[in-house]
């Protein structure tokens, strides 16, 4: 359970996170990442979202750790895999 000092140190580490790294999605390695800042306390955190695979992560967390456990399933998402992913509501011919 982080104490205020620990929170401060996590936020400090987040500041050191280079912006270049956050422009690349850790899951699909695409660069279509958009960034949204916290509504207050500017710099507290930002949220990054990949426009390609929709993976989202906050700057204060380790995105690679989020992907770590499901290694082989979600750690690296290739474009060829995306095409094979299930689509529960199929597209109708007129909708395409």
């Amino acid at each position, binding site marked *: *359970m*982080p104490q*205020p000092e620990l*929170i401060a140190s*996590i*936020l400090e580490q987040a500041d050191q996170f280079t912006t270049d790294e956050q422009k690349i999605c850790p*899951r699909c390695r695409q660069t279509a990442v*958009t960034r*949204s*800042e*916290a*509504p*207050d*306390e500017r710099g*507290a*955190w930002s*949220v990054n*979202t990949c*426009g390609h*695979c*929709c*993976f*989202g*992560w*906050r700057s*204060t*967390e380790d995105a690679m*750790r*989020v*992907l*770590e*456990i*499901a290694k082989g*399933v*979600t750690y690296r*998402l290739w474009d060829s895999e*995306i095409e094979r*992913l*299930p*689509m*529960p*509501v199929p*597209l*109708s011919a*007129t*909708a*395409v």
Partner: protein
Amino acid sequence: MNHTVNDRCVDFSVLAIVFSNPASVLAGRELCGRSRKLEVKLPKRGTGVMTTELAYSGPEVRTVPRDLRELLEQLRAKSRVLNIERAVLPEPDVASFCRAASELGDTTILFDNITGYKGKRLLVNLLASWANCALMSGLPSDLPIRELVDELCSRADRQPREPVLIDVGNAPSYECLDTSDVDLYRSLPLFRVNEHDGGFYLHKACVVSEDLVAGARHDRMKFGMYSLQVQGRDRLGVHLSGTDNLSLHVRIAEKPHRRLPVAVCLGVPPLAALVASAAIGYEATEYNLISALYQHPFELTRCVMSKLSVPAYAEYVLEGYIEPGLRCLAGPFTCNGGGLSEIKRQPQIVVTGIAHRRDPILDNTYVGKFWAEHDCLIGIAGTLRLHKQAKDSLPEIARSGTRAEGVHLRLGLCGGRWDEKRSVAGMSFQDGLPAENCLSAYKQEIGEAQRRQAQCRSQS
């Protein structure tokens, strides 16, 4: 026509339970001293809060909380809400609190001070206990589960009630409206519910959609609970199964390549959340059932950007549409029970406006391996659905008063999830809890089972 039979059924339900379950007579603790018949007084309408009073023939008079805030007040009065006032990070603090609360029991937590979300409040695990579920129904918190479900089934059986539509200017849901600068990350106190979720999920989102062919009639609108993934400032991925009502509406709208208007309601009145999670069928009307459970007309209001009707007392209403022919990746997320879902190509909601109450409270929940709100919701809602299906297909069910037995059937079907200790043992460990914790839970259960067995042996 049915309600005549059902009214009789209510009167005879005590006898029915007694005859169908002699053990309850022997136990003598659930039925003695309390009549099952309810007298419903007229709802109080006036300048203050409107409530429906349910007068038990027992000493206590209970009220059905009209919205989430009223229930929260009741829970506060009973010290059933844990208020976290110190600064917490969205990750990992909030998620860890949720998991700990679920692991330890059924604690409801209200976060007041989430770093980066000043002034925003987050409520989790609201209905994670039977006591809270009883309170949301206006019943005593110590009511046994079977009586709680029996009472809700009785209410559902009575005369259907129509909801009422109130002007959007008077609807608390629309006290504040933002259509110009939509940013879900800034508006909602989001957190990663489980460590390996593919994003930030809203697991108690109630989505209102309509059949575009049938038109905007509230009795043709569907109100269902879905897991939504925030996928951008104004984007929500919706987790559909392909057989649910929203999937059907998406298909209908996509045939002529039309946008499907939807409204995402967050922090809805608790009984509305229960009905939304029930999946009562395409022909049934959720709003009528909510009115029946409340025993007064459920208050709706009309969206400002579509003709959809939404609960007037929701904390947030996100208006938007589903773009036809668009599928985006959604997932994975940790499901009820602890397994990780697949990544799927799902429709995406484009949010065009955010309406909310003043000082809104986001109602979200932990979903994972431990006992969670969805276990309670699915349990009660499933029994409501089971009761309805059984009554529709077997008319004698209505006369035999087997509702309480239906609960046991449902409990039996759900197996281990209905016992907290078993739920620990029966989970799948995909989200990386330390092995020692898992082992100790198993050891504890085995030890308890051995003790129980020894007790039975010594008694016999």
